[in-house]
């Protein structure tokens, strides 16, 4: 109500400063990640050139390809060459001769849909459950939710997925169980079961911390003050409580992005969805070094970016980061 350009500007500037600092950190972490990925592919058994050409290729052809791929140069130069190629968006070619970047381009859509679907189910479910547990704290409902959430962390996602396929998809025929649909209706129908499966674990992780941060807010003196003034119902929840709980939720989500990606890999394998995760699993089974490198780097960048984004948004939401 009293928001002015001046106040927003202050917050914006601070957020930008945080963002810039974080971007620097992003570059450092990505450098570290490329190094890890590079070393990882160096210690992989087998010769990349030999793997490509097959066992019957002549030694001359192999050494020719080794030279083309730059494998005959020293490790530091190979690493530098690798970084430069990555910076140009060139992730190399797969064993089958496809550009890794075009593999990523084909497959990233399904993975993003799965991430979105999982979040769409998990965040509202986590908010409702955590809210209920916090509101009825130490009563039976709360104990039931806490126990349920604890146990849900130990349900293997792929197993839950198969149970849903067998018990829901097969008898009803409502949900396709392989691939994502192309039209909007088909897409949504094919996303339901994977998203619910992925959401179970994520919800469990979120509820555990969200409940205690909601309790902290509910117990705070400023909520007692709001109540004493007759503020109640949805106004109290939205304007006074949730605004203070958004920060912890975002921080928590950002921290768990790594597990979320792992979850998507499992979902793709369980529901036969050709996304980045299944591409990674296939490629690593085939020892397809460049494809593994590219996808791993992408996931790592995603995690780091999500962390930075989370931190920036949280600092924008918290007025205490502004000092005047």
């Amino acid at each position: 109500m009293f928001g002015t350009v001046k106040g927003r500007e202050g917050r914006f500037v601070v957020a930008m400063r945080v963002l810039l600092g974080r971007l620097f950190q992003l570059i450092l972490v990505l450098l570290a990640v490329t190094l890890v990925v590079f070393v990882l592919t160096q210690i992989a058994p087998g010769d990349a050139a030999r793997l490509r050409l097959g066992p019957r290729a002549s030694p001359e052809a192999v050494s020719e390809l080794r030279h083309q791929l730059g494998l005959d140069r020293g490790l530091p130069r190979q690493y530098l060459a690798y970084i430069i190629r990555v910076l140009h968006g060139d992730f190399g070619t797969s064993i089958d001769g496809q550009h890794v970047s075009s593999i990523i381009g084909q497959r990233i859509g399904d993975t993003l849909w799965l991430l979105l679907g999982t979040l769409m189910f998990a965040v509202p479910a986590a908010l409702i459950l955590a809210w209920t547990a916090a509101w009825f704290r130490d009563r039976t409902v709360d104990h039931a939710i806490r126990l349920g959430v604890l146990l849900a962390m130990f349900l293997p996602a792929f197993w839950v997925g198969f149970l849903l396929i067998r018990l829901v998809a097969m008898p009803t025929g409502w949900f396709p169980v392989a691939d994502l649909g192309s039209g909007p209706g088909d897409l949504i129908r094919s996303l339901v079961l994977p998203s619910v499966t992925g959401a179970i674990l994520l919800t469990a992780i979120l509820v555990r911390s969200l409940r205690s941060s909601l309790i902290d807010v509910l117990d705070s003196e400023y909520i007692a003050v709001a109540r004493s003034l007759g503020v109640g119902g949805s106004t109290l929840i939205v304007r006074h409580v949730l605004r203070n709980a958004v920060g912890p939720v975002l921080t928590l989500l950002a921290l768990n992005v790594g597990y979320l990606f792992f979850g998507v890999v499992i979902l793709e394998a369980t529901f036969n969805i050709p996304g980045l995760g299944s591409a990674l699993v296939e490629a690593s089974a085939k020892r397809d070094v460049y494809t593994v490198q590219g996808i791993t780097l992408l996931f790592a960048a995603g995690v780091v970016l999500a962390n930075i984004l989370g931190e920036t948004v949280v600092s924008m939401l918290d007025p205490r980061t502004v000092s005047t």
Partner: protein
Amino acid sequence: MTATLKAGEEVPRTRQPRRRRRGDGKLAVGAVIVGLFVLAAIFAPLITSGHPADQDLLNRLAPPSQAHILGTDQLGRDEWTRLVHAIRIDLRVAALGSLIPAILGSLIGIVAGLGNHWLDAAIMRTSDIVVSLPLFVFFIALVGLLGPGTGFLFLDPGELPLIIGFTVISWVVYARLLRSEVRRVRSMDYVRAARLGGLPRWRVITWHIVPNAIGQSIVYFFVDVGLAVVAISTLSFLGVGIPIGTPEWGSMIQAGRNVIQTNWWLIAAPGAAIALIGMGLALIGDGLDDRIKS
């Protein structure tokens, strides 16, 4: 307390009936579940028939019967035998994959909590980076490319990479827990008193600081073993870690996916085993947590 005691009479020791404490119920249920699994693993040959790799090719995908209480798989192997023998692999790898990071991480956490500012900052920044990496994705990439490797001491092929991977992933939790607990305990009055009283530094640490700081990480250890079981089976479901064909819950589920319509129990049973042992371990952890907090 008005009655006077005669000389030589012993003060009667009033023994309070043991009160049920919070968390006792969860602890009992969890201990029974985990205990049954451990017993089944130890006495696996007694409660199953034959070897988990024994094939009966004439009797493939048999439904549950008296001879095969959970039926047989595609190669005619007895599902129940494989299920029970899998406990040995999953629990052993999970226990080691949690115990090693627990010890290592706790030591690092204690050092960070007691050490100087720079050491502490270095350890914490490292753990920040470790936490912010998609380690399970790295793990798939690394073990997938390297292959399961060979056995190591009493470990079978594929088990060592899993244990190393879990160590890299979960030492951070213990390090952070112990660090903050050590810092909390260190500033307590009784620790100050002990230090001022002239107790040697290592005695203060081993008698006063560590015992009072270790509670939460013991709670987490039990949860972590359960999470490790889930992770091991998930990875072998993805074809990473424990080699295909080994009696392991995750690869059993992977093998059963093609016959989900007809032989659904081949998927239901191993998954239920994972969930059950996980819940048992979680209940033990939660029960201990209730006890510590009450």
